[in-house]
């Protein structure tokens, strides 16, 4: 007798649990246009805004005079765990006849970057920053190597020093 009761109560409870589950999916089906969470990605490209902290790529901000803050000290290159940064510096003789190291090219290989942020954190002159760009797909690998400093850019001269 108990077996029979168990048989029917088990069946009944089972059916109730199934109906409950169908309630959840059914509810979402009938409220679907409101509850859809998918972002329409390529369409919303214009309005899509990443968070400020978003780690898209390493960039070197330039001001309006095409000047950056990088002193070519190599600390980012040393701190990079993957060797994705290569700082090429050149020696420039300034007006006073002193030799001075200046940034020539700041190569950054995004294909090898693991976005750990150590270059940006350790930079003593805050020359690097995170960019918000996230569409990095390229057809060839050598396009991953970017030069961060603009053509003909110069180091910002600190005011009040001279």
């Amino acid at each position, binding site marked *: 007798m108990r077996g029979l009761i168990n048989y029917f109560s088990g069946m009944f409870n089972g059916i109730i649990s199934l109906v409950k589950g169908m309630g959840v999916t059914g509810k979402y089906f009938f409220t679907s246009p409101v509850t859809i*969470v998918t972002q329409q990605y390529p369409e919303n490209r214009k309005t899509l805004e990443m968070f400020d902290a978003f780690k898209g790529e390493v960039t070197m901000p330039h001001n309006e005079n095409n000047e950056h803050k990088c002193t070519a000290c190599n600390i980012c290159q040393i701190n990079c765990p993957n060797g994705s940064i290569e700082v090429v510096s050149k020696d420039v003789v300034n007006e006073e006849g002193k030799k001075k190291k200046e940034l020539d090219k700041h190569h950054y290989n995004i294909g090898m970057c693991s976005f750990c942020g150590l270059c940006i954190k350790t930079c003593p002159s805050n020359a690097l920053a995170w960019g918000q760009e996230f569409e990095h797909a390229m057809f060839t690998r050598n396009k991953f190597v970017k030069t961060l400093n603009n053509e003909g850019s110069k180091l910002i001269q600190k005011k009040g020093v001279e």
Partner: protein
Amino acid sequence: MEFNIYDFTSFTKWIDESLNAAMSPFWVMITEMAIIGVAILAFYALVGLFLVYAERKVCAFMQNRVGPNRVGPFGIFQTIADLLKLLMKELVYIKNADKLLFNIAPFIVITASFLAIAAIPFAKGLHAIDFNIGIFYVVAVSSLGVIGILLAGWSSNSKYSLIGAMRSGAQIVSYELSVGLSLITMVILSGSMQLSTIVEAQANGWFIFTGHIPAIIAFVIYMIAATAETNRGPFDLAEAESELTAGFHTEYSGIRFAFFFLAEYMNMFIVASIAATIFWGGWMPFHVPGWEGFNTVMDYIPPFIWYIGKTAVIIFIMMLFKWTFPRLRIDQLLTLEWKYLLPINLFNVVLMAFIVLMGWHW
């Protein structure tokens, strides 16, 4: 000739007569066969494509997604694009596969669903053939598909496929019983196996209402067993994507895979049509005895719309099953059939017979 969307009998008769006037009876038969074949083929492809699209949209909405929305407005041409892709894909030949069986298997599956569609009444006077043993024929024919699945699993020389096929065999053999018995319950109620008669008998109330509790039980059992028979989730053990990768059609590609895919959706359509025909009155409008005005309004809706609407609702329920429940394990599947559905079904048949004997069913 008068064309009437409420009754296709005169239309089909007109075609028959005008053909008879033009040629000999033998050629008339050939021509009619060809017309019906083309019509069903077109309908088949259309419904198949639409169902695939519908399923993707329905499941997307259940899952808070958008679903296909790239090809055409709301992605309505997505399935056509998919079909084109599948047509163009390479047919991969499997080393050491049984070539003949491997090639035949998809055709068996798709032919079985073709055969079943012939007996379904879409509207008054609109069916290919009106057997006097319609239900028997449908049950017999729709279970042929499993042969294709078994052959597919066996011939593709893949271990996953074989397990899938064997599961499918055990599953169909068991659930065929439940489908048959729940339909027999309704046959007892209607007193006929002819589908057109069954539909006509529901003019004053669908069987699910007039058949009292046994009809409801039979309907529930039929829904479960039919879902199992179409190899759809939660009974998709033969495919069992997370266990057997794709089960019996693991090794199929291109249009052969498309055949399996299409056949699955058409089987769903067929079992839903049968459920609609036998339990919900097929193309018969919803009538409440005594409410003349209401009945007249209902009669204005064409039978074909009624039929499609009912089928769609049942298909939606089956989709709801698939997208809500986890998959059953093979022993649970057999337990469900042999320990629950079959005894209840047998009891239900007796109950129905009793009700009919006592004359309580009208």
